């Protein structure tokens, strides 16, 4: 099982404007611990550093300072241990229309990670595993032959989830997995994620800007504001008893039928 821990992680970007350059602190001393079987929601507005944290976790960026610990050891970016890290931590991207290669079939998208992380499997075993993955995300076996453009947004996101599950990871980073989907299918995809999490005992980092789903699906909520964690606690506490001004603003922005009815009565 994999335990991920961030300790005072800082990520700065250098912005160049002609001769001048200044630093943008995208992630400011963020610390948290992600354990198997738990879901942490990372909530914040756009530009607050949510996706940068996801990229740091996926080794697409490296922290400026601070440490990312994997099972209490510092993260390694090269070699066999990096490969085993990639196997243990996987990601579902935000936009299912961009995260699947239009040139390749669904089968290719699922077979590649299986083959990469289980090099010993024969062709037949890989095919079997691909079908099993499709089944896990409730897609029919004939999707293997299809190309992304033949799929709906929800189906694509299911394929993306299946791809993330292919190496059988212990931790899943879901970067706004439903924000690009129709409202009507969001719940289906989120429920699927929740079910898979229970089945596999996954640790999930659920990145979102939607407090309602964050509360529904996660054990803890972290509120990110300008790269800083301004609030961190059990989901219900953060929603019902917000301490930081920004959290209150977020909570008020969510539609609340009772409050609205009360306003209408007045």
């Amino acid at each position, binding site marked *: 099982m994999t335990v991920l821990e961030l300790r005072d992680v800082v990520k700065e970007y250098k912005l160049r404007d002609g001769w001048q350059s200044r630093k943008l602190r995208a992630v400011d001393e963020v610390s948290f611990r992600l354990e198997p079987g738990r879901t942490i929601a990372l909530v914040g507005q756009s530009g607050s550093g949510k996706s940068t944290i996801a990229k740091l976790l*996926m080794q697409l960026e490296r922290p400026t300072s601070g440490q990312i610990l994997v099972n209490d050891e510092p993260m390694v970016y090269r070699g066999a241990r990096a490969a085993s890290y990639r196997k243990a931590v996987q990601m579902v991207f935000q936009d299912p229309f961009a*995260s699947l*290669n239009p040139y390749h079939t669904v089968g290719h998208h699922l077979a590649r990670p299986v083959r*990469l992380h289980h090099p010993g499997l024969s062709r037949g075993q890989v095919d079997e595993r691909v079908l099993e993955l499709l089944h896990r995300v409730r897609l*029919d*076996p004939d999707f293997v032959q299809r190309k992304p453009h033949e799929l709906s947004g929800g189906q694509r996101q299911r394929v*993306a989830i299946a791809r993330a599950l292919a*190496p059988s990871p212990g931790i899943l980073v879901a970067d706004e997995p439903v924000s690009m989907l129709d409202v009507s299918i969001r719940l289906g995809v989120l429920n699927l994620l929740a079910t898979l999490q229970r089945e596999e005992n996954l640790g999930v980092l659920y990145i979102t800007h939607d407090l309602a789903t964050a509360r529904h699906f996660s054990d803890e909520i972290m509120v990110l504001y300008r790269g800083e964690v301004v609030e961190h606690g059990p989901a219900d506490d953060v929603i019902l008893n917000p301490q930081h001004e920004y959290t209150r603003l977020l909570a008020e922005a969510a539609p609340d039928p009772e409050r609205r009815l009360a306003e209408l009565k007045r």
Partner: protein
Amino acid sequence: MAITTSTSQLPTDAVRRRRILPPMTLKLGIGLALTGLITLFGLIGPLLVGDPSAVRDLGLTPPGNGFILGTTQTGQDVFAQLAHATRGSLTIGVVVGAITLVLSAFFGVVGAFVGGWVDEAFSLFTNVMLVIPGLPLVIVISSYVPNKSVWLVAVVLAITSWAGSARVLRGFTLSVRSRDYVLASRVSGERRWRILLVEILPNLIPLLASQVVFAVIFAILGEAGLSFLGLGASGSFTWGTMLFYAQNGLSLRLGAWWWFVPPGLAIALFGAALSLINFSIDEIINPKLRSQTRADRKRWGMTREQLKHAREETA
């Protein structure tokens, strides 16, 4: 979710093939047919005709009389010359196309994919090559080398013409390499060369194809221009050298149209055919260029006014 149906192999395969190849339109059909005919002529023609340089005692015979396309001033068979010239010009086109493909893919795609100072260096080199004026350089090189083979001319043309497509490819690669599906394959631990070859390159195929076709047209026209100026390959036949000798032999003033029309027409037809193919490839890259709406109107049996009206209604 879809209802499970029996997995049939055939229709999905057909769908896949249709997506890689451009749709068969009249444009593409004409282009392919013309290219095919001219290529076939260049391949088989020289085997069937006699010596193109053989001098005979019957100068400027009009077509017919035993010579399909007549003879030149010195009694050489124009048809035999045309066959050899087609082969020569096509050789140059193919060689330049291949070299351009390799150079532009290397400097455009690899540079953009690797990034960092490699990209900067490759990009700088490409830009320098881009601003080197092609034709004058070719003239300078040509005047230094006394005995030029077809290959030398092809290499010189290729070196001066790859930079433009390298820039186009670089731009597109930059956009593809930061797309989510490339990041996703990095996350799943794919090796870098595999990401480049399997995830990025297939999406560049239409662009590469159209760049190659363009390079072939450019090479054939460029060689014809050089040869017409008398700077082409010595001792070999191309459409350009034919025009050069026709010009030297005062064919226009003597009214010997059968001497200069065939090579001229061949250049024009081959260029047009490749352009038609290129347009069809462009339509895959940019579907907006398709003449779809016209076809739709025909299919629905609507007049132009009706269609306009319908569009206003639905807008």
